[in-house]
């Protein structure tokens, strides 16, 4: 199997709203960013893949307009998933493994500001039995949080500590939306307070992947993808054990995460309670730096937030701050679907 690495990563400064910019206007600087980092131009890229959701901004086919930012001329080999960009990265990784391309551009964007993302996400739910009740994303996460509290796995002070740590760490991340001291606030849907929930905002991210020696040409210290896998669970919340994440554990196992300890983990846990679940499922001890970027609690551009976890983990390796990192992305209610990537830098 070919060695494939992330060789560049860029993201927007994630903000509450980007109403003065269209999606492609928001995305383009990030595409230019990764191309500049690598010195590549669009015609040099072997495959392009993106992630986004029509429902988020209320526009069908929105990704077709985002393609303008890539400059798809002459025509390019390109695909798109209606999922978080982490899965677009997975598709691109697969493409590079076939040998049909040596480099890939992966990007994702999402504007949560135009709509009410809490309500938009209800459209993901069983259309017959659940969606007609409109249980919003915070409510579902709160059900999971209460289950954790009932099981003795966490309590409100512990959740608040996750929130505080994330935003404190985010002060070092100029792209994050919520940085520094943020009040834990009142209950939004109890037991979750506003502080336990991710900020609502808009943003985009892009990554360049490269294979083998090409990766070394483009990046001093490539972040090699040692393993990547994703798994999905049953859809019904009442069928699952909400205090655990068997799909995250299985994905981690298949990705080789448990073979050796990691020093860093970037977890796509938009709610504090979900970090508790994932730490356990992914067997992350206290010696692991979790979400040094601040994680989704500091910036959560939906559809890009998972790709950003992989990008942040890679960036830590690029900078020499990390040697072996786990990056996680999630999709669906209460961590129904999970992706885990294990990244490593060359030995120092």
């Amino acid at each position, binding site marked *: 199997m070919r060695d494939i690495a992330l060789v560049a990563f860029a993201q927007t400064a994630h903000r509450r709203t980007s109403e003065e910019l269209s999606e492609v206007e928001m995305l383009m600087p990030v595409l230019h960013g990764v191309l500049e980092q690598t010195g590549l131009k669009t015609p040099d890229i072997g495959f392009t893949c993106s992630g986004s959701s029509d429902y988020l901004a209320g526009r*069908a086919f929105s990704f077709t307009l985002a393609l303008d930012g890539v400059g798809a001329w002459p025509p390019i*080999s390109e*695909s798109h998933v*209606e999922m978080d960009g982490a899965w677009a990265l997975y*598709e691109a990784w697969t493409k590079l493994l076939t040998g049909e391309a040596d480099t890939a551009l992966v990007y994702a964007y999402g504007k949560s500001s135009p709509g009410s993302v809490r309500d938009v996400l209800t*459209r993901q739910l069983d*259309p017959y039995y659940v969606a007609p009740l409109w249980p919003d994303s915070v409510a579902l996460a709160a059900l999971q949080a209460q289950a954790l509290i009932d099981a003795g796995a966490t309590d409100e002070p512990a959740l608040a500590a996750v929130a505080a740590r994330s935003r404190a760490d985010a002060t070092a991340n100029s792209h994050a939306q919520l940085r520094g001291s943020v009040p834990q606030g009142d209950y939004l849907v109890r037991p979750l307070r506003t502080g336990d929930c991710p900020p609502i905002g808009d943003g985009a991210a892009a990554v360049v992947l490269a294979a083998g020696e090409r990766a070394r040409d483009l990046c001093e210290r490539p972040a090699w993808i040692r393993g990547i896998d994703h798994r999905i669970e049953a859809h019904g919340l009442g069928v699952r054990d909400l205090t655990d994440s068997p799909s995250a554990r299985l994905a981690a196992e298949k990705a080789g995460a448990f073979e050796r300890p990691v020093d860093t983990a970037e977890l796509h846990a938009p709610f504090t309670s979900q970090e508790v679940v994932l730490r356990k499922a992914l067997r992350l001890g206290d010696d692991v730096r979790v979400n040094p970027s601040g994680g989704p609690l500091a910036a959560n551009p939906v559809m890009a937030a998972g790709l950003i976890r992989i990008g942040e983990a890679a960036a830590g390796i690029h900078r020499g701050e990390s040697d072996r990192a786990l990056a996680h992305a999630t999709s669906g209610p209460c961590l129904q*679907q999970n992706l885990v990537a294990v990244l490593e830098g060359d030995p120092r």
Partner: protein
Amino acid sequence: MSKEPVAVVGIGQTKHVAARRDVSIAGLVREAAGRALDDAGLTWADIDAVVIGKAPDFFEGVMMPELYLADALGAVGKPMLRVHTAGSVGGSTALVAANLVAARVHGTVLTLAFEKQSESNAMWGLSLPIPFQQPLLAGAGGFFAPHVRAYMRRTGAPDAVGSLVAYKDRRNALKNPYAHLHEHDITLEKVQASPMLWDPIRYSETCPSSDGACAMVLTDRAGAARAPRPPAWMLGGAMRSEPTLFAGKDFVSPQAGKDCAADVYRQAGIADPRRDIDAVEMYVPFSWYEPMWLENLGFAEEGEGWKLTESGVTELDGDLPVNMSGGVLSTNPIGASGMIRFAEAALQVRGQAGEHQVEGARRVLGHAYGGGSQFFSMWLVGSEPPDS
């Protein structure tokens, strides 16, 4: 770097209709998936990963339906992806699934594309009003009709060509039990007398709106060896995209289509498509796209595609049959149509196409496109494995 050869060992689809009122969305996809598994002699447990595709979520009002469909498609505990590349999505989905096998990430993959667009209304879904934008001055056909007129002008093709295609595809559909439109009393006169909707496109030359699903089981050499029926082998596959609109875009014969076909032919060692390929399932939503795509795909010189149609070459018993299944003109669940083209191509080289089988079809092209003539995905399948 060698790729694993990819074999299609199971194919299933639903009987496409205007509205399926007897099943849930899960029931619809399950029907196609179950038939593909049965055809492959496999069970849910034999599938390593699931890749689904469909057009915009608004058509059914379900966001990211892979989440709700995980249980129905036996995907619990497995990897599951959902592709969306507009109208070409059915084709792209199959290619993403094929890549998983080719890269040896998985051994056996279930791929499926569907649309249950009767739950809303396809016209509504395709034309959601956007503030500050000029309201679409014409329906979907209105978008393509000016390009058809441009083709007719460029080539001097006679007016009747469009109706010849529609007449052919609808007659072919009569031989395909799964096709939506079964117009038993169709005649060329009726097609030609049909009202002009967006001149030069007539009502009879447009595609229906259908509910339907199509599924395939893709596997590696080991899986193909175990399969109960002869596989179709993927000889080449590619995707190309170009911008929706740009200065100098050729809407009649988009560069992305040409480049995509060239890549597929190169992979498959096709030097002369007209000679080397036995039949084509191409995405023709409005009948004039048959001659246009014949040129775009290199089966005819520029300006000459209509001659193949007019002379009967593309008939089921012609020298280069096109859309033996009845094509998109007879069946159009939007998210599934691309995969139906790919699946029908595979049915042909497996000898499983029943009454619409092309005798001795060994290499057949499946083609899909979407957006404003923007996204193209194609594959060439054969009855023999590729040279390793």
